[in-house]
């Protein structure tokens, strides 16, 4: 086996992935930093604080949780803004990282896979997938907080 050739082949793949997500990442990072600067996240966080405080859930990661099933690039842009604001090694930063790393972009996968064979009625797929996504949100919080 040619180790070096394999490595460079793989690295090329990584670059391809990166260039394919880069344009939407650009657009969404700009949008997320605009939302951030406008004070929207602060308002949202304040709004959810009373509910979140009951269980000790950090409201700062809620926008990310809502974004995750909808757009991969959007949630990475949001994760980046959270990591920079609160620190990558803070509790909030870690919960956000686990949240972003533990699930796929649900709506994208469902649309692409069922769309490719022309099925529009997806039945139980989306409810089951979104339930799994909520479990991963809750578990991201529980594992970081208690393990």
């Amino acid at each position, binding site marked *: 086996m040619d180790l070096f050739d394999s490595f460079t082949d793989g690295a090329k793949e990584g*670059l391809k992935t990166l260039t394919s997500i880069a344009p939407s990442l650009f657009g969404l990072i700009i949008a997320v*930093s605009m939302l951030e600067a406008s004070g929207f996240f602060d308002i949202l966080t304040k709004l959810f604080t009373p509910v979140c405080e009951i269980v000790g859930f950090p409201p700062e990661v809620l926008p990310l949780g809502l974004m995750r099933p909808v757009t991969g690039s959007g949630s990475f842009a949001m994760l*980046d803004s959270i*990591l920079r604001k609160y620190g990558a090694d803070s509790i909030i930063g870690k919960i956000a990282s686990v949240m972003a790393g533990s699930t796929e972009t649900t709506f994208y996968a469902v649309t692409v896979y069922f769309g490719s064979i022309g099925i529009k009625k997806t*039945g*139980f*797929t989306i409810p089951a*997938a979104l339930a*799994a996504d909520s479990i991963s949100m809750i578990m991201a919080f529980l594992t970081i907080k208690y393990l």
Partner: protein
Amino acid sequence: MLNYIWSGMIIISFLCSIVTGRAEELSRAILDGADKAVSLVISMAGIMCLWTGIMRIAERGGLTHLVARILSPILCRLMPDYDKDSKAMAAVCANITANLLGLGNAATPFGLAAMREMQKSNLLVNKPNSSMVMFVVLNTASIQLIPTTVAALRQAAGSSSPYSILPYVWITSLSALLAGIILVLLFVRNRSSNRIL
């Protein structure tokens, strides 16, 4: 969908900045954001290429084969509508393995092939059978051994241990995956006992 979301984000931030009086911060954020985006992508490039390179070596070394062989019996039980040696199951195994190893670009073509093969013997024609639902749910909750993009973002944000989150990611995604599987199985059982099909 992203068109609406993106436009929505821009509009909300304009409206919000008027209310909070942060118009100046907003205009600065637009330029800063563009700047930040470029440096972020560049700083992510190294670590992502490193992992995809290593994974490609592992793949050629037979890791993909091995993982697919371990997963195959489990996947066959989860998708009983298809035979162990069918083309559909081969594509399913290849897709889940590629997802697990973080070979995202390789996973999608296998996934599409799996859907195509599964659809061929789908008696419901315009509705997915339970195996297809199971397959897509597995994909939406897919476990990734090393979440490279998140690790790259953590590294770029100056984390002292970008990979410290790995065990938490594994536990979390495994629980979500199990929840998804159980829900689909419950649904399937319910549906067949009610004879809706």
